[in-house]
């Protein structure tokens, strides 16, 4: 079977399978989940049993059901944030590469400054400016994340602007926006996709780590990162509770990256690695 005109490798199939399963779970959470997302049905951190296949969480909710519902929130928020951060980061990065030295220096310095401000202070600034809400959460993550995307996008685009087809577009008198959108973007996609996979996964965890600012997912909704956090303490007693959401994140990370690796291998010329017969 082919996908986008290419035949996925075995590992790519594995990745695709993982992603598909998680997405199906997210979409049909209501049907699949044995219990509701928020109802406390057992004791704190019950061991896995036939009633609760993965045990219960820190306030007695069914872990499996939380995981299933959590897929929805986690994947959704991470996806929106990552897309937003890529919109910001890529646009700025391309602009820096295409727009000339002055714009480049300004943008690069701004990003340097943003990166060098400690996260806590940075988050507090955003918090005090925008207040705390899910929109702020997504925005904060996106802005923080976009600085990293910026660096990559700029590096990639810097290699592309010297291409003669970009020069040809400039000679034609095309505007910056057109050049960024039509000449640079399509060619910058492979490395950006790869980064997208990684950043997508980072954002799962980021959601959880910003939670102390009240920026996390609002209860009673479940998100995997938050579930690891809420149940983290159980690990000090050898209870497996936080392992399940951590495992879900790990699987999603690995799945996404397997697919990303495959997409990259389509686009890049093979390295000298397989040169020796």
């Amino acid at each position, binding site marked *: 079977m082919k996908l986008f005109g290419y035949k996925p490798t075995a590992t790519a199939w594995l990745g695709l399978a993982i992603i598909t399963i998680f997405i199906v779970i997210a979409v049909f959470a209501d049907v699949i989940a044995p219990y509701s997302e928020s109802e406390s049905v057992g004791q704190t951190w019950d061991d896995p049993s036939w009633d609760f296949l993965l045990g219960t969480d820190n306030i007695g909710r069914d872990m499996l059901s939380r995981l299933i519902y959590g897929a929805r929130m986690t994947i959704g928020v991470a996806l929106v944030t990552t897309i937003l951060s890529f919109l910001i980061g890529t646009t700025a990065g391309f602009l820096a590469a295409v727009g000339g030295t002055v714009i480049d220096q300004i943008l690069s310095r701004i990003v340097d400054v943003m990166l060098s401000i400690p996260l806590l202070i940075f988050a507090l600034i955003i918090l005090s400016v925008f207040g705390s809400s899910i929109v702020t959460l997504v925005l904060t993550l996106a802005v923080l994340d976009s600085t990293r995307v910026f660096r990559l996008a700029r590096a990639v685009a810097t290699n592309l602007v010297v*291409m*003669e*087809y970009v*020069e*040809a577009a*400039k*000679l*034609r*008198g*095309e505007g910056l926006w057109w050049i960024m959108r*039509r*000449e640079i973007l*399509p*060619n910058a*996609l492979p490395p950006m996709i790869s980064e997208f996979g990684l950043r997508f996964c980072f954002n799962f965890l980021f959601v959880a780590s910003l939670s102390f600012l009240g920026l996390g997912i609002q209860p009673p909704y479940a998100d995997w990162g938050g579930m690891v956090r809420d149940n983290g303490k159980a690990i000090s007693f050898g209870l497996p509770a936080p392992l399940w959401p951590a495992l879900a994140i790990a699987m999603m990370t690995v799945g996404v990256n397997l697919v990303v690796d495959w997409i990259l291998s389509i686009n890049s*010329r*093979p*390295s*000298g*690695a*397989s*040169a*020796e*017969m």
Partner: protein
Amino acid sequence: MTRDVHETILKLTDLRVEALSGAVLVDNVSLELKRGEVMGLIGESGAGKSTIGLASMVYARAGCRITGGKVEIQGEDVRALDAEGRRQRRGQRIAYIAQSAAASFNPAHRLMDQVTEMPISHGLMTQAEAQAWALELFRALDLPNPDTFGDRYPHQVSGGQLQRAMAAMAMSCRPDILVLDEPTTALDVTTQIEVLALLKKLIRDYNMAALYISHDLAVVAQVADRVMVLRHGKMVELGETGQILLEPRMEYTKALVAERKAADKLAMVTTTTREKPVLEGMDVTGIYGTFRAVKNVSISVARGETVAVVGESGSGKSSLARLLVGLLPCVTGEVKLHGEMLPPALKDRNRDTLRKVQLIYQQPDVALNPRQTIGEIIGRPVEFYFNRSPEQVKARVAELLHLVGLPEDYAGRLSTALSGGQKQRICIARALAAEPDIIICDEPTSALDQLVADEILKLLKQLQDNLGVGYLFITHDLGIVRRIAHRTAVMLQGEIIAQGPTADIFAPPFHPYTEKLLSSVPEMRTDWLDEVLAKRA
């Protein structure tokens, strides 16, 4: 040529190389090489000549596989050896000289370390021995300051020197066989002749066998005893060099020979009355940092006229083109279009002046966005300059494709699917789409195979006749200048040293540099190199 009969040193039998996609790159090619013998491999790109060269070292590039045949070095079947055994043969018994020395030297290490790496890592010599031998080779190859040459980094020496250093590197293990893959192609003509002579001497002095891979028959003619003509991975013809040059048997060989010979003759392109210049550069100077790439150059092009700018790399001819279109703002002088002065910087020029001067690049590969369809590429100027509706754009694209001799249905394809010549046609179509008065052609054919280049030149000529467009034609190839230019300007170190009607430039009395250029172009006879060297000495 030495014709001593020695033992067979390299033998390829029914060699077959396939791409992982299944395409056959080398199709049952056999050849036999004796000690002291040089065999030329000739063919256009995609003929499989480099693949054969690498396969004789039992090496296939990523994405390829040697799928059949035997590779024997002095009777030993190297393909049958394990990976370690094959690795041991590489460099030691058979060494490789690549086309681009600049890319093939590791920028991070000194030349000496790279030249001596092979014998040391193969355990053939101690470091001191290897260095002594390297110094000897540097001297033999006429490298400047041979004692300190090895201390330099690749980027610190010139292309010609680097190519010679590469020869030294290949010789460092005293191999029996050399594979020379277009060793002079990246060099200027005047440098090429020196390197060619040295390589020839090297092979003779150390009594090696060599595979000499080139697309240029005239170059191969100077070094090879026998020539094998290849096409699409298959052997077309194998014969003595003289026979191939003088009495080619196969049609394809004949076409190659004829095409190469045509370049030697001056076409009778003459100007009638010269129209008023459209694009003029007057006393222009362009600088990169502190380097003055173009110094006080004046040049003009009229409609219907072809003006050639000829010179070696670094002579400033491409900078001149960039200066005229505004990519490199001129610091003195002015650029005029239809008598009106243009702003020096590109961003200050208006859309219509941009439209009237178009540029065609040397590398069609990087001049076309690999992620856009042909239709988008050609259609964009139409849409951009003339504000046409999508239907009109579509129609115009079809028309333009027809004009450059490509089928209309190419509009939906990506440029990556096309051959080099087809890509260059797309570039021309894109330039024409703007309906320009002048097209600046920056080496438009030098990345192309001869026969294809010839087609492109014909197309350009034909378009000029039909549309009356003027060309500023930048090239290093004197053959092309002879064939198409009405007027010619010769550039050296940023200055124009001679300018005038082509016929005058190519007739005595020559400017000394022009004469050197002219005499360095290889001619289609086996004794040309010896003759020129003798003459110069």
